[in-house]
């Protein structure tokens, strides 16, 4: 059993998944990280590796509307799934309200946590369109930022919520 399992793990598999609305088929090892498949095979480098163990959240993507650390997801687990990365958030040149709010409020400094942070915020606003400050802080607590102290990020999310509500 061990031998067949290890053969299975070492063999390339064909995996289909929908990424930012497009159906993609990749050949990958089953335990290959979704993060690596996105970055190396699909050229979507917006998701970043910060820690490789699910602590920092800079590799965050949406998998069937759930926020996941793509460094912890084997690609086989993403088979037939619907994935949204930061590249899928803006509609063409038109930025998402969240992206605009991050720009205006100073929510992005060095930018390395920003794609994951914006996706975490997007996920939060889907569940809670009018979050309190506490809910924003709690909702983003899986995404580490070393630059901002989070204040301007929290303000950006609150601003985006207000603008979405007004739209």
């Amino acid at each position, binding site marked *: 059993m061990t031998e067949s399992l290890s053969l299975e793990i070492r063999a390339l598999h064909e995996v289909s998944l929908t990424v930012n609305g497009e159906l993609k088929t990749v050949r990958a090892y089953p335990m290959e990280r979704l993060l690596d498949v996105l970055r190396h095979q699909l050229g979507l480098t*917006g998701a970043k590796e*910060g820690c490789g163990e699910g602590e920092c959240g800079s590799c965050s993507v949406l998998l069937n509307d759930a926020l996941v650390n793509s460094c912890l997801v084997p690609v086989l687990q993403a088979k037939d799934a619907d994935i949204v990365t930061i590249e899928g958030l803006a509609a063409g040149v038109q930025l998402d309200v969240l992206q605009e709010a991050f720009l205006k409020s100073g929510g992005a400094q060095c930018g390395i946590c920003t794609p994951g942070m914006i996706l975490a915020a997007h996920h939060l606003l889907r569940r809670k369109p009018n979050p309190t400050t506490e809910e924003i802080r709690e909702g983003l607590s899986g995404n580490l930022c070393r630059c901002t102290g*989070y204040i301007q990020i929290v303000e950006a999310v609150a601003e985006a919520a207000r603008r979405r509500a007004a739209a």
Partner: protein
Amino acid sequence: MTGDHIVGVSVPRKEGRDKVTGRAQYVDDLTLPGMLFGATVRSQVPRSKIGKITFGPGIAWDEFIVVTARDIPGKNVIALIANDQPCLADGVVNHPEEPILLLAHSDRHLLPQAVAAVSIEYDQLPALFTVEQSETRSEVIWGSDNIFKSYLVEKGDVDGIWKKADYIVEGEYKTGAQEQLYIENNGMIASFDAQQGMTVWGSLQCPFYVHKALMALCNLTADKVRVVQMETGGAFGGKEEYPSMIAAHAALLAIKCGRPVKIIYDRLEDMAATTKRHPSRTRHRTALSKDGRILGGEIELTIDGGAYVTLSPVVLSRATIHAGGAYYWPNVRITAKAVATNAPPHGAFRGFGAPQSLFALERHMDRIAQVVGLSPVEIRKRNFLQPGQMTTTEQTVREPLDLVRLLDRALELSDYHAKKQRFAKENELGTSRKGIGIAAFLHGAGFTGSGERNLSSVVGVEGCADGTIKVLVSSTEFGQGTKTVLCQIAAETLGLPYENVEIAQADTDQVPNSGPTVASRTVMVVGKLVQSAALGIKQTLMGSGLLGDSYSAEQFRSACRTQVAAHGQFRSWARYEAPADVFWDDDKYRGEAYAAFAWAVYVAEATVDMTTYNVSVDDFLALQEVGKVLHPVLARGQIAGGVAQGIGYTLYEKVIWQNGRMQNGQMTNYIMPTSADLPVVRVFFEEMGNVHGAFGAKGIGELPMDGPAPAIVNAVEDALKVPFDSIPLLPEDVFEALLAKREPQSVGGVR
């Protein structure tokens, strides 16, 4: 001219759109054709002779590129200050994680197993791990006395003051190492071609530091080395000197294999092997008059530099000059030294020595207040530096400084007095204790002493063929907003819309050496040069009659286009010139230490949970005087972010050492604050003009790192009435201190 101000307005970040869309290119996002991946085999022991190296079984070694010290074309050294740190260990190692050899392969997944399969025989030597061990000189591990650098600052007659003193207050204070913990790990790509020379792309702060290091290592002339900064995902000093090492490694592999090589550290390697903030120990002995005025004092400051000199002399310099803080010392003697231990070299980290010596001083001021019987507020007010007085290095305060007013405003904004009373009352009940603490401090902007004169930075501004303006600097963007603010300065100087000004990528082939992006110098020093160079552009266009005294943006563009069409490349340069009245004596450590100081008062409110001994910061007020604020959103972001790192330094971030090696090099066990842990930092600015910076700006980036630790620990003492003199202060430390306080009573009671 448009007439609208650009400086002082929160314009959009130049690279902001790329950052929020995920398009910004960091080094790991770049792939070159035929590129291999590199990895580093590191020392497993602190201090040792290196014996036999064996390439173990189970690895297809013929597929790997292997580089040792013998492959280095030039000098085996990372050129910086003392040039004592090898690029690859040759025969001996002096700290754990010291690089010994390098591997490269086209499949990055094969590298970890290969690194693990290299076995190295060690013939270990005795090692030193603490400042105290280093001081005993039981082993001499560096030079003749284990001392990398020492400074002596003397002002007045310290020896004569003790007999005049009504009080003598002593204290010893310690700070721990701190990891910069930028979210983007270190990384470099190198490509070598015998004709073109060496090119590296990387995550870095100082392109010309890397440039200098590669020239010496590869034995190449300046024109054969090119360093390009990619978008950099946080740095905080952590990408000041160590990137030269990684670039050197990638370069050696690239030379050997003739293909581009990428080295990206994982988190564990980055945390264990690269630099951290210097641990420190500071001793104060202070003489005071009956009414609480400082008569003088001795300050003895020691920092742990790790195994090689690297930047320790410069860090020590800043620690030394900041040791007397924002107070007037009629007499003082500061003795400072950086010592060697067998740990990876400690290095640059935001604040650069000042957080260490200011933690000691601002804790000591609270101790003095208790001994003298004054409040923490009053002891500070009685000793603040005033205009016309001289700092410890005998630099006269020439600006209209009013620290009493700054402190009073901070107390008012934080509702200090009412809260202090209320907490004292409420602390008698309940399962938590609250306290409030203050720290008053300063931070010098720019290089210390003669540093700026020696750097002799150059900045260029180019009028382009399409009529737009391009700023040419080696100053790098890594979150602070360098690109944005320098473009604002050029636009304001030229009276052009912000959108008409761009900034070149920091590429040593394209930009002049405007110095390293460190020491809170970018806006104040480089910004001023951008202003001068931009003025040169305007004067040339006016002088040639292409531009009148008043003009529209379109008229400027047209004039610029005409100039380029007629005369070709149109550039204006500005080089730093030290003001005539700036005097600094490197031997006596006396004179104008910095062109300008920023001043601040921070107030922290903390709660100690008496069940878990967890300390949380409930409110944080940061009031500072930083000259003109050029971009309010960015400036606030710098302060809030710096305070967050300061809170981490104080209450969360503890490096666990064992035999010189970090044991907790992961984000799971080295804990930095999350959005759920931090208070709202309330940021306020006072603006007092400064003649040295562009449009009156001073340095801002490092200042907020200095104040949180003492303010918070002062608040914890206020809450618990127990003094804490070292950081980090974790729940177990609070618990032990409270236990120690209770112990004598309980012993008496039980027996």
